[in-house]
């Protein structure tokens, strides 16, 4: 236990191991401990196939650890059913995937509004206004009514980030958000992510292969062969 001044982690993963059954069982993540604190800007690096994405899926409640526990705001999640986990994803977590994963038939604006509509907290006008505000913040308000197919890779990635922010999540998990962007666009995206932590106190965890980008995080987590080699837990109890 650290001192009482230490804040409650937003996301916490304890002694988690994820093994995929198959003809040859594969261990994606081994005995990982990690805690994400409010306002933290965390980078995750590691060789290809080391388990970075797998770790992010566990943190994002998209996947379940075979052994271990994931806590959201101090609450264990292993006992929750699929619907309850979906609800947490919707309200508290934002995901940006390496490939943008937008709905192709919907405009950028509609894609950003999607999680808001699913949550149903705001009325339609408020949703639209908020989505436009986020798009504006990311510098793509002008493209709000275009469909993903009419946008460049960097624009799509920013729409995906906007969508991840839709319900004002406490943590945004981004898997190689700059993966297929040029240096300038990568720089832009990184600045956007950085600003999101600074301004709103939410935490960002992003996976990247670019060590110079990773170096600009508050904390650098390095994963090798499914284990955290460096930059480990901020605080893990139990």
């Amino acid at each position: 236990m650290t001192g009482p001044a230490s804040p409650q982690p937003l996301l916490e993963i304890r002694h988690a191991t994820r093994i995929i059954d198959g003809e040859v069982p594969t261990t994606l993540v081994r005995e990982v401990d990690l805690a994400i604190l409010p306002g933290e800007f965390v980078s995750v690096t590691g060789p290809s196939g080391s388990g970075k994405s797998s770790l992010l899926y566990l943190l994002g409640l998209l996947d379940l650890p075979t052994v271990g526990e994931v806590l959201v705001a101090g609450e264990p999640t292993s006992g929750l059913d699929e619907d309850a986990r979906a609800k947490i994803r919707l309200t508290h977590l934002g995901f940006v995937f390496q490939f943008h994963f937008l709905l192709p038939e919907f405009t950028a604006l509609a894609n950003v509004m999607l999680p808001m509509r699913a949550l149903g907290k705001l009325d339609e006008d408020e949703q639209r206004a908020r989505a436009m505000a986020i798009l504006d913040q990311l510098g793509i308000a002008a493209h709000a009514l275009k469909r993903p197919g009419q946008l460049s890779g960097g624009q799509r990635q920013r729409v995906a980030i906007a969508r991840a922010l839709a319900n004002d999540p406490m943590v945004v998990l981004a898997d190689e958000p700059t993966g297929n962007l040029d240096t300038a666009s990568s720089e832009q995206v990184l600045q956007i992510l950085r600003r999101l932590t600074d301004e709103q106190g939410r935490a960002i965890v992003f996976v990247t292969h670019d060590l110079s980008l990773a170096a600009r995080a508050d904390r650098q987590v390095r994963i090798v062969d499914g284990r955290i080699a460096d930059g480990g837990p901020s605080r893990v109890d139990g």
Partner: protein
Amino acid sequence: MRLILDIAWTHISSRVRQTLVGLLGVAMGVGFSIMMAALMEGSQRDFVSELVDSLPHIKVSDERRSAPPQPAEVAYRALEVVGLSTPVIRPGIKNPYAIVSMLEAWIDGTVAPSVETRAIIRYAGRDTAASVIGIDPVREPKVSKLATQIREGTLADLHKASNAIILGDKLAAKIGARTGNSITLVAATGDLMTATVVALFHSGVAQADETQAYVLMKTAQILAGQIGLVNSIRVRADDIMGARDLATRIEAATGYKSVSWQEANEDLLSAFEIRNFIMFTVVGAILLVASFGTYNIISTITHEKTRDIAILKSLGFQERQVRRIFLLESLIIGVAGTLVGWALGYALCLALGSIEFKSPFMDVNRLPIYYTPKHYLLSASVALSASGIAGFLPARKAAQVQPVEIIRGAS
């Protein structure tokens, strides 16, 4: 819910051709089902109403359901008498007019007595057996359609000659007699009677037109050799479908065998039931086949949209919400198909109903089409349930997609 509808709509509206094919499948299923049901029920109703019109709703006859108890049976309870020979002469209904006025006072409907006997009609040297029915020309129109079936002359012409007779038109044609001709009737007793043909009738039922003749009651009584005989009382009930119950009550009150039209045509009515069963089976099968199209479309969409489903679920959509999307899609196809099918079915009914053709067996020269909202609602409910099932199966599968597996696979 609006969101789910929006997503469902983008899926099907971006697949216009596939959606139209599925929609048309449902529409044709619904349309043909309605047409078939209208035709089947139309012909059945047509047939039943002809049947009901041509026969009395209830016929009280001078028979009894079981042999009357014999004096020996009454005296000795252990005794049973079987194999009694039936009397040659029909006993007739006792106190027929008392029964007629009792029934008139009691039931909702009309009542008429008649005398049924048989005779041989002799004309131009040829003999033809006929059943001769003695009627009261005033009461008769209240219980049967005979008055409207008269082709030449009128029912009242029975009073115009002594021993006037009305022949079925086919019977007249068979013996070669026309109105105004004198024919000879040979009674069962062998007595001869000269009668004048005053009118012809055509009921449309070949059996009746070929073998029946109508005379006044007293003429029939003379033919039967029993003065004052009344051996059947016919009842036309206001409530046609209630005839069966009414017949039971009349039988209980009079002791005479009372046969409703339903009982008289039990075989036919049960044949209709089988026919209806076959119809519903075929209709169900048509709609089931139609729903395969829907199943195919929804499965295709769920396959093509696996990635989108993974996105939605990773964003926090719940399984049932994803399921609803695809269920809704199949219901949209089902509802639209049903509406188009209704229009198609109605159009088919109108088209079929307007075709004229000649049948050697019946007078009907148009197909009897029966229009009822029931057929439309029934086909809609079957089509929608089938669409629901057709959508549910792929929808359930789609909803179970594990987003992480799709996302892992894509990156």
